[in-house]
């Protein structure tokens, strides 16, 4: 169907229907982005990707995503810097942000939550964990 085809290629920043939930996956690993994309697309999200925090910010100039899956350690701009910038933006408090990272120390998790993350996923993760975390923050 032409309408659906058009929807599937439209960039996330465009005017999307209000009932289509959007997810921005921010990770410097292409493999992690691919794995996460498969999971969240399976949950009905329209997905966009960025390889670092700065690129992710450039995706946040239009309508903000509903959910951000955010790596911590990335080149150019790390996840912590990104979320602090995001939360300062108009409407930047609305997206549900889940850190997805190999950092597992309690003080690091607390730091991420303190910076404004809604929840925190320790890698490696699977579909059940991600689904559970998204449910916990009310995103699914």
């Amino acid at each position, binding site marked *: 169907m032409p309408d659906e085809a058009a929807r599937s290629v439209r960039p996330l920043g465009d005017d999307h229907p209000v009932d289509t939930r959007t997810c921005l996956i921010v990770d410097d690993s292409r493999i992690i982005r691919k794995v996460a994309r498969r999971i969240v697309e399976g949950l009905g999200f329209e997905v966009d990707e960025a390889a670092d925090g700065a690129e992710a910010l450039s995706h946040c100039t239009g309508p903000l995503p509903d959910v951000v899956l955010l790596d911590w350690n990335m080149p150019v701009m790390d996840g912590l810097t990104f979320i602090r910038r995001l939360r300062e933006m108009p409407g930047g408090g609305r997206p549900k942000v889940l850190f997805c990272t190999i950092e*597992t*120390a*309690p003080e690091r*998790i*607390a730091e*991420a*939550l303190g910076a404004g*993350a809604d*929840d*925190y*996923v*320790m890698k490696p*993760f*699977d579909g*059940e*964990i991600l689904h*559970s*975390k998204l*449910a*916990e*923050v009310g995103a699914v």
Partner: protein
Amino acid sequence: MTEDDFDRLQALLASRAGYRLGRDRLHLAEHRLGPVARREGFDSVDALLQSLWVKPVASLGWAVIEALLNPETWFRRDRAVFDTISRELLPAISRVRPGGRVTLWSAGCSTGQEAYSLAIGAQEARVAADIVATDLSQRAIDKARSGLFSAFEIQRGLSARVMLDWFQPAEDAWTAVPRLKDAIRFARHNLLDAPADGARFDVILCRNVLSEMEHAQRGRVVDHLERRLADDGVLILGAEERIDGDTVAFRPVGGRQGLYVKAPAALSRAA
């Protein structure tokens, strides 16, 4: 594993545990029994089963049964019911109990996530709760009692904030803090066994257990649950489970999936 072996396994689980082992689980059974065979010193699953059939040893029989039970569980499974428990049931029951203490039973607790979820909910609701958690599997109870959960297990159902409040890292795993572990008494128990004393619970959770049981045994288990439940208590089943056809002792709570209270008939019998 032969068809005959599987038939015997089905009979073993049905008679000792009331558990229904569907024929579609033949390959799963073979897979699950591999580690049991190795642990017990057998060369193969076939050797394990032949030994069991020739000379039934109780401990080996239970090791086989435990391996074939469904251990699936996670923290705050069916999240809404835990909100109902901590925000509504516990405060309401606590108000009418001496000293405000509420008693809960996690019946068929597997590796303990349900019991820990209850303990967290009670402590966050500031309700004094005595929590008993039982399972048929001694291995599951041992793991539950350890309070140790892998990174996968701890993240399934718990938010990071709750995880940080109630668990601390222990090498590759996370362990429940002492005040959480101390709130739960874990014990092995077979739901087919009649209550050995008059202890009653205000809230009994028996979720995703009855649906795995042989139909003929369900009524017996429901009867035991009824005898264990306080007259004004609440029985909580899995979200998709129904016992309406198995008993007249309980009636469902309207609009609350999985919640049952005693029917008037059961109240008069208990009186």
